[in-house]
């Protein structure tokens, strides 16, 4: 089993001088191929900070991070941008689709950035949109979609460039319970069928049904509590 994400002794400290705040302290995590990991924690516990660091958006104060075996240390801005494009899929709170692109174009855009062949990109977009059951909506603008549909497009977009790992930042926050669960199930499905990995950050304990591992972010560390997973 290969590690899609490896975090070693990662520390992130905000502020300087006498008022420093260590949001992450010596955090360790390994996520393997085919694994879907959930990270829970109350608001302000550092979930977004954790995800930004893992997703190559934020440089940690110390420690090392590897994505698909590649170290993020010593990479410049341009190299990190390239790595995010090729290795990482992002899902954000409330979809964050581009308002002026139609559903299919949302996927074709990231394919263009990665310089994918146009025909191949169209095929992959069609495949993903059909799998996520929004193929009929491919010519709609995001404003014409429901919240659940938008998040499904966001899932498809995140998987478009066949990333090594997907990071989802509270993907269910703007959805009702049933739609939220549906979205999480779809992320899990994609992880299994594509043989990739995913890390989802959430504060909603009811969304964990499909996750392989559940971790709690407490005082800058990740703690495993298998027993707490509730079955609906």
């Amino acid at each position, binding site marked *: 089993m290969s590690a899609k994400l490896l975090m070693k002794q990662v520390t992130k400290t905000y502020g300087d001088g006498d008022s420093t705040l260590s949001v992450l302290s010596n955090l360790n995590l390994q996520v393997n191929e085919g694994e879907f990991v959930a990270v829970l924690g109350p608001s302000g516990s550092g*979930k977004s900070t954790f995800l*930004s660091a893992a997703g190559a958006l934020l440089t940690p104060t110390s420690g090392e991070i590897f994505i698909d075996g590649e170290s993020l240390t010593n990479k410049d801005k341009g190299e990190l941008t390239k790595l995010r494009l090729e290795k990482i899929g992002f899902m954000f709170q409330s979809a964050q689709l581009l308002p*002026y*692109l139609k559903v299919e174009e949302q996927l074709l855009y990231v394919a263009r*950035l990665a310089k994918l062949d146009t025909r191949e990109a169209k095929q992959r977009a069609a495949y993903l949109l059909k799998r996520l059951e929004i193929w009929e909506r491919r010519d709609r603008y995001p404003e014409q979609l429901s919240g659940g549909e938008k998040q499904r497009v966001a899932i498809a977009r995140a998987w478009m460039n066949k990333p090594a790992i997907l990071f989802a930042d509270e993907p269910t926050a703007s959805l009702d319970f049933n739609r939220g669960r549906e979205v999480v199930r779809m992320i899990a499905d994609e992880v299994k069928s594509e043989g990739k990995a995913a890390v989802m950050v959430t504060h909603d304990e009811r969304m964990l049904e499909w996750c392989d591992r559940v971790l709690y972010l407490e005082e800058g560390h990740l703690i495993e509590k298998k027993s707490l997973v509730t079955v609906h």
Partner: protein
Amino acid sequence: MFLALREIRHSKARYMLILVILLLVSFLVLFVTGLARGLAYANISAIENMPSNYYVVQGDADHTFRRSQLNDAELKAARAVVGDKNATPLAVQMSTITAADADVKADITFFAVDMDGMLAPKVIQGEGISNESQGSVIVDQKLEQSGITIGSTIRDQASGMSWKVAGFVQDSSYSHTPVVFINNRDWQEMKQGVGQGAAEAQSVPYNVIALHADTGQVKEITGQLDNVEVITQKQAISSIPGYSAEQNSLLMMIVFLFVIAAFVLAVFFYVITIQKTSQFGILKAMGTKMSYLAWSVVGQVMILSVASLCISLLLTFGMNRALPESMPFQLDASTIILTSCLFVAMSLLGALISVAKVAKVDALEAIGRTGA
């Protein structure tokens, strides 16, 4: 351009608004430029159309033709350098004429020239006059609007002399007045008539010497003659009374229009860019390179400014046709190209503020934010 074009497609109304504003500004720029060029031409076409490229003027004349006075000694010296054909005297005199058969009074400028030399008027209608003829003149065709035709008799108010109009020339204005060409013989008579008598009989002085020369020859002439200055055609034109003041105020308008164009575009785009800050954060988080985003912003501005420019060029040409003859308007290809390039360049300059703003957006903004 993928994003730029699709964004325009999605927000048609918003971009149409910018397009219309840019269109109005660029139309105004082109129109005022054409008017400035037209006015300039209507002002000084007589000098602009002269084949000479340099003029010898008196050293203390401030480059102004009418203040300068030269005589045969200077002409001889100039001719010795550039050859007989390439130096010819020119006398200039502003006056007012009346016509015998029409109830008109018109301000005109007399040009006394050698009718065999390079300044000889190119007659487009009627007949030319020779150096020996007496009592005939060639006039600018604009006098036709005052009711003067070929065969009319015009009378100079100052000297009381009368001439018959033998022919018309085109585009010969000096300081906004039509030019009346007379030969040196009539010029002598006119000057001596109003002068103190027959004392200075042989030759009356003229104002300037028109040259067709190169820079080497110009240096030679200034070296040989004291108290003269050799000026270029451009200098001569800008010293024509009223010319600089008129052109400068029009130029100021044009410069302001360019600045306004850049400002309007800069502000519009900046506001739109600020609205899209979170979108740019998302785009960066997803792995869009900054250079791609910069081109996207610049591309949009390019599309809008070039499109508005094309439409306003069409409008300008249409307008030009609809304008009455009396409204001077002139746009040649080089002016259009220069103006167009400047307009697009100013638009792009305005877009740079937005590019700077986009560069400052952090990809981190994408995480942990709620929003559209």
